[in-house]
């Protein structure tokens, strides 16, 4: 893949369509040529012409490698291009689009051949137009079934924007990383700290995953965008069972915008060993109390980020409501505009203009969204009240304009998606003070309380401690939370603070959440009571002698 010359034109163009400056990228030029031809020629006689056309080319480069038990099991690399064409028929008030989004996909030439690229666009455009005609007719008929009109238009206007950013390239020392993975995945038996329980480790793997996407977008508004992003993820996954069959494991890693930004080899090895030791501790830990606990739980920043990502963020991303309803959007906050949804000392902002935080490069940062709308910080929650939803070009009631959050997963339509979500307290406590508050509650209530370090999927605790009033911590296993819901975050958070935790993800769209530690006053902790699996029917092979 050739390097393109750095052409950075952060132009927030107010030019009309015909005067948009030609971009300096041959792929964008080819796309624009075909777009112009289709805009002029595409119509079935007697049927509606499209009122909006958009072409998007995604150049996707991935590299993945996994090692298991100290040997490489898989290494794959792929580089392919896909075009996505979106055609809209009707008008902004009511058009052919569905809530899920509609686009036609085709493979595009990996070698940049302009004739083949245009051919792929032509083929996808033909499909997309025919589908849009059908969809428009069906939708207009469906709308006639309902008494009231939809609560918002289907699409908003946007100014033409030209922004050509440097191309991203996948850069990673593959050999070096393979060696790291091989070594890390084998530590369970080679490390003196873990060898004594190596037989109990049923799986031990380490993996690296690199994704580099360069996106080219042109549309009939006159927008031309070129934007690249990279996400590198590495992680370890170790685990097995306790003596009673309970499946236990630890799996975690690091995410960065460059391979160099991932943790060092030494840090990776330390992580594996720490995880193995933690797994072993979990194996020997007592099961959580059989009777339910309802009371204070201190969530680490890591755990709090997961809570917000699950309970809060998806519900402030505005999506088109179901057809025929008078709702504003989907989700539990659809009718909470300007009402309290968090405690008054918490505010939340989404600021994709923030590119780094405390020295870490943020994946969720961007200048212009995937629909060509520039982004500025959005105050989602101000002193506990919901003041803004995140909106793309699919408007919702009271939010007729995009605020630059129309972001698309690969191959998908753009939807309202967060970028860099920052949860802040107006009265943050230090880490020590948070602990002290927790212990104070324990003393007050005359009982043990809980603190959670990290969660697994479904917001279940993975590393959970019972804490006595004198501060003694006991690791426990086999627990789940209950009543960890929107009510808990609205009226159950007593304090926030500690060191902010940066949670990052690469897919479906690159996104960052920065969250403080949170002290909840009343969360339920109870036994999972899951079916225990059988222990292995026979022991693993004996470890090789040192």
């Amino acid at each position, binding site marked *: 893949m050739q390097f393109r010359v750095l052409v950075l034109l952060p132009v927030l163009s107010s030019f009309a369509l015909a005067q948009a400056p030609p971009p300096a990228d041959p792929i964008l030029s080819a796309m624009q040529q075909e777009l112009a031809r289709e805009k002029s020629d595409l119509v079935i006689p007697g049927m509606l012409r499209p009122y909006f056309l958009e072409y998007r080319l995604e150049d996707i480069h991935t590299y993945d490698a996994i090692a298991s038990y100290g*040997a*490489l099991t898989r290494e794959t690399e792929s580089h392919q291009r896909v075009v996505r064409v979106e055609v809209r028929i009707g008008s902004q008030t009511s058009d052919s689009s569905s809530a899920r989004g509609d686009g036609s996909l085709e493979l595009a030439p990996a070698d940049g051949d302009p004739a083949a690229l245009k051919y792929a666009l032509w083929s996808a455009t033909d499909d997309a137009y025919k589908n849009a005609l059908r969809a428009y007719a069906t939708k207009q008929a469906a709308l006639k079934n309902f008494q009231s009109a939809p609560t918002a238009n289907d699409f908003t206007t946007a100014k033409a924007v030209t922004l050509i950013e440097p191309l991203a390239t996948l850069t990673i020392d593959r050999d070096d990383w393979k060696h790291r993975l091989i070594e890390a995945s084998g530590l369970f038996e080679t490390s003196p700290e873990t060898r004594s329980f190596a037989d109990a480790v049923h799986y031990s793997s380490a993996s*690296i995953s690199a994704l580099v996407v360069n996106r080219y977008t042109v549309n009939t508004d006159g927008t031309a965008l070129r934007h690249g992003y990279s996400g590198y993820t590495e992680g370890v*996954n170790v685990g097995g069972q306790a003596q009673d069959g309970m499946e236990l494991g630890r799996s*975690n890693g690091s995410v960065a915008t460059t391979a160099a930004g991932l943790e060092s080899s030494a840090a990776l090895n*330390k992580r594996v060993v720490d995880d193995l030791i933690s797994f072993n501790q979990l194996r020997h830990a007592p099961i959580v109390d059989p009777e339910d606990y309802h009371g204070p739980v201190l969530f680490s920043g*890591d755990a709090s980020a997961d809570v917000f990502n699950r309970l809060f963020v998806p519900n402030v991303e505005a999506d088109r409501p179901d057809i025929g309803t008078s709702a504003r959007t989907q989700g539990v906050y659809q009718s909470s505009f300007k009402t309290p949804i968090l405690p008054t000392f918490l505010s939340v902002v989404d600021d994709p203009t923030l590119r780094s935080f405390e020295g870490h490069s943020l994946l969720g940062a961007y200048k212009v969204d995937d629909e060509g709308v520039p982004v500025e910080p959005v105050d989602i929650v101000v002193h506990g009240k919901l003041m803004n939803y995140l909106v793309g070009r699919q408007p919702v009631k009271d939010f007729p304009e995009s605020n630059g959050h129309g972001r698309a997963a690969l191959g998908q339509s753009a939807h309202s998606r967060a970028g860099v979500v920052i949860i802040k307290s107006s009265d943050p406590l230090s880490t020590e003070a948070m602990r002290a508050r927790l212990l104070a509650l324990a003393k007050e209530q005359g009982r043990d309380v809980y603190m959670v370090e990290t969660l697994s999927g479904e917001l279940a605790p993975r590393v959970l401690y019972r804490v006595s009033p004198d501060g003694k911590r006991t690791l426990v296993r086999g627990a789940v939370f209950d009543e960890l819901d929107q009510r808990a975050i609205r009226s159950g958070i007593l304090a926030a603070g500690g060191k902010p935790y940066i949670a990052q993800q690469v897919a479906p769209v690159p996104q960052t959440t920065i969250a403080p530690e949170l002290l909840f006053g009343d969360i339920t902790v109870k036994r999972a009571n899951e079916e225990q699996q059988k222990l292995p029917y026979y022991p693993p092979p004996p470890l090789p002698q040192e």
Partner: protein
Amino acid sequence: MDDSIHSEHIALDHAHRLEADTSLTSPDSYHPAVSRFDFLQRLFRHAVIVSLCAPMMAPAPTAAAQDEHATQSASTAPQPVLMDAMATELHRALAELGSSTEPVTASKQKIPAQKPYFLSYSVADAESVTITSQYGAIMNSSASHERTADVQVRLGSPAEDNTHGTHRASALTTMALPLTDDRAAIERTLWYATNRGYGKALDALEKVKTEQQVRAREEDSSPDFTAERPQVDILAKEPALTVDRSAWESRLREISGIFRQYPNIFYDTAVLQATHETDYFVSSEGTKVEAPNHVARLIVAARTRASDGMDMFRDETFEADSAGHLPDQAEVLAKTEAMAKGLNDLRTAPITEPYNGPAILSGRAAAVFFHEVLGHRLEGQRQRGDEEGETFTKLLGKAILPEFLSVADDPTLTQYDGHPLSGHYLFDDEGQPAQRVQLVQDGVLDTFLMSRLPIASFANSNGHGSAEIGKMPTGRQGNLIVTSTKAVPEAKLRQMLKDAARKQGKTYGLYFEDISSGFAVTTRRSPQAFQVIPLVVYRVYVDGRPDELVRGVSIVGTPQAALRSIVATDDQPEIFNGLCGAESGTIPVSAVAPAMLVSQIETQRQAQGTARPPIVPPPPLDDAAGTSSSPKGGR
């Protein structure tokens, strides 16, 4: 717990988020690191036609396609580390499994521990290269190396085990193995998979026992597993795959670039696939087999649509033992050009009308026909089971074809008349040596394609137990060879067609030059119909008018009637090489047959498509951006 400050962190304590490791957490999927981009997978499946038994043209290879490995004597190569690790771990598993009493999960009583009566490890170590091209450009060019293990666990006894009836899949667990010969890692991975497999087998065995008590007596109460002699044969493994990717990319650009001259063809693809694979098989019966296999395929396909919405497609496959032995560029270009022109002509051909009369199937068409109509129905496992139609089960020893036709299946053949055969193998996927099998002799049904699943009439495998990785083997075809003792020259056969048509009062007979497989419906619940898709059909006029291409033909009928109406054949067998999909997955196959005259074939009009052809013509090729109408390519 304080986090490191080197870099961004995310505590991914979500086992499901580390998608890269699905190989361990869900070993039943043999695709670890499943692509995050499902939509890309779907697009690729459309781009690379995995033809369900599609007929393909046999190339004339430029060099003799010898399989040198087949002539090497057994056990001359030393046992590789991988095989050694497989054998060691397999025997350890046998020794340790079931050596203590354990309660089975469902019941409360302690039952005697179950030792597997059979255990096998089958590993496919495969390197492959795939290059995909469309419209003169390269869409994808990639290489891969995978090692995958299929672990098979059988509990109970050969008379009744955990695979009985609908539980066949319970025996199989599939897992990715280390790519390097790291003994300890290989053994530990095999242990993990075997342990999972043992648990599945225990669970299934209990279900089988309960179901057997409750159900009505089965029609065929044969055992679940045959008794066979162990095989030992260690052949040299495949050398590393080398493909000159940039040379092939040039060639593919030129090949698919031909379609730029045909604006009415709206989809085209040219794909090169080359694979070097070594298969290792070790079983508790003492079988130890290592066998190489290698293949290269060049597939060209295209689609168009008539103005009335009817979709038409054509494809050609060129096959050889290696990429270097595929036909030269001139030959491929000529055939691609012919295909493109033919497809273009088909767009404007008149639509057929329903027809009931005589027809000739070309050799290629007859080969596909026999594969679908006869071959699938002679698979052993289809003669047994509540759901199977069992068309031929009771016809052993009876005439099912005219007496001048015989049918054999011979996977030991590497080529036929100098052309490579796709269905060649040395050992099947159950470690049994490939055998030539005479299915039909002089029209009389003699035997079936047998895996190690016995049936009422046959208690042994005949080396036809095949499967794709991750599936349990069943009886499958290899190289199906149809021979005739009533062979006449092609011109004579044509004359016989006209005579038959005239006699039946028809103005024309039909000539099926090319057909694609539809699907063979062999189950009890559906009517015994079959559908093959005619691609190129001509009317052969009785009065000597030139042959006329028609479109929209679809054959209907029942299998037995179709086979019995064959009247004569020509003397020029043709070959189709393809990929065939069925319950045990997609495997390479071939079929060889002469052209056939059938006295009665019934056709109907194909269902009308409703899509319009593309609305706007394709983008002009020569314009200001300097796009060339002929992409670079060729030698």
